[in-house]
């Protein structure tokens, strides 16, 4: 059954790639006949993308690794902030009532439009600016997850811990954290791609390195093959991480 599913997925994927390739080849022939610009000027064929990746893999991997490190710092900062707020909400539930709507508002804010200002504030080429944008985009799903876990844990577990004479930090470590883990893992599936998007976004404007920078430069050079290759690598990385997390998460599905 599993093998059959894989075969179906492979068939669908191959059909999609083949259709993409054939459509662009057909378009090129028609464009030549009609003396028009071919779509391949903007959309590369799967073959072109493969070639680009093969010929530039060193550059792509080096730029990707820079983006991943920035996204890693971004998500770490976002996680620390979410954890800090989660602990504060747990210790002072009244703080949640006043602060959560503000954080929700920040999350609803169009950060994409605000990114140039953030980058300028931190200084052109500054890592911090990019990391900050990445964390700003990724913290919210983790905060919601921690908040959910804490409200689930709050009353009954807290009371149970109190009857055992446990300190608040012990309750947090031994009860709240294990309860939060599946929620946090689930939120990471949203937060990790978001942190990469944040880092890429920051790189568009702020640095001379990273996948975001490579995408922008390739666009100016009218090199769609490189743009798609870069984005494809980002996608592959995000999907791999989400896949690993989903596997980890299975342990918590009972």
């Amino acid at each position, binding site marked *: 059954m599993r093998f059959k599913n894989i075969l179906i997925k492979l068939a669908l994927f191959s059909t999609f790639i083949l259709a993409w390739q054939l459509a662009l080849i057909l378009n090129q022939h028609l464009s030549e006949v009609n003396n028009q610009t071919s779509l391949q000027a903007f959309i590369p064929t799967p073959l072109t993308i493969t070639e680009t990746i093969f010929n530039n893999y060193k550059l792509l991997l080096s730029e990707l690794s820079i983006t991943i490190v920035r996204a890693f710092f971004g998500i770490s900062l976002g996680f620390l902030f979410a954890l800090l707020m989660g602990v504060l909400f747990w210790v002072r539930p009244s703080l949640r009532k006043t602060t959560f709507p503000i954080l929700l508002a920040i999350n609803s804010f169009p950060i994409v439009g605000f990114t140039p200002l953030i980058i300028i504030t931190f200084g052109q080429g500054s890592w911090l600016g990019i990391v900050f944008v990445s964390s700003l985009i990724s913290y919210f799903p983790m905060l919601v997850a921690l908040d959910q876990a804490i409200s689930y844990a709050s009353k009954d*577990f807290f009371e*149970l*811990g109190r*009857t055992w004479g*446990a300190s608040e930090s012990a309750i947090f470590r*031994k009860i709240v954290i294990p309860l939060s883990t*599946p929620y946090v893992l689930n939120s990471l599936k949203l937060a990790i791609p978001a942190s990469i998007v944040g880092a890429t976004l920051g790189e568009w404007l702020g640095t001379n390195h990273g996948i975001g920078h490579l995408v922008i430069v390739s666009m100016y050079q009218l090199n769609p093959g490189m743009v798609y290759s870069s984005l494809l690598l980002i996608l592959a990385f995000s999907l791999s991480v989400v896949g690993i997390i989903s596997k980890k998460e299975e342990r918590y599905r009972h």
Partner: protein
Amino acid sequence: MLRLNNISVSFPNGKQETKVLDGIDLNIKEEKFTSIIGKSGCGKTTLLRVIAKLQKPTNGSVDIKNNRIKIGWVPQQVVLLPNSTVLENILLPIDITKHKYKKEFLDHLLVKYGLDKYVGFYPNQLSGGQKQIVSIIRALIINPDLLLLDEPFASLDSYTREKIDIELASKIRSEKITTIMVTHSIEEAVFMSDEIILMKPILPSKIKNIFDIKFSGIRNLDLKNTQQYSEWINLLRNKLLDSIEINDEV
């Protein structure tokens, strides 16, 4: 062991306050099993929560002989970590408090309550009754000085309930654990208790009667066939019904 002095508890009810308990004076005897019975909503659980120090009384005080006593708390709703196994859940208080426990004692409890084959299971793989048993073993594993049970057997079928009543009563007596249990079952209260507290049904509730339950024989299944046992059941049932009927007439 434990003394409640003039305990009153009120809860906010909109702009007003509802007084649930009023002027409760109670002396809980050491190493004895005390049950609290009464009509639903008469404040039995609130009283137990005051004793567990989970509910601050509006007035009055709770004097405990030793403030560092270990409390085993079995709440009405089963509270288990969903992503931890049965064994991890049972050992959670040990993990948190670093108290010592005896492995043989745990194994004995697991076998006795039929959970020895379920230690690696997760809570959602257990029946409601099994979850409650995990909750009870978790309370016993810390070797508590005071065991507080809030309708612990409500989710069990009558057969398992009777079996656990007998085993728990014998365990508590042999370990000499001071126990307070809130229950709706008069039979259970009579079978297990040395003392039964009957609460008044009207709010604010007070203690209506305290009964000393004494039996000449051992507390086993045979006890349930004795005249003495039936007399206690009838007496308490009548007292409970009387208090409810008087309240309804009012």
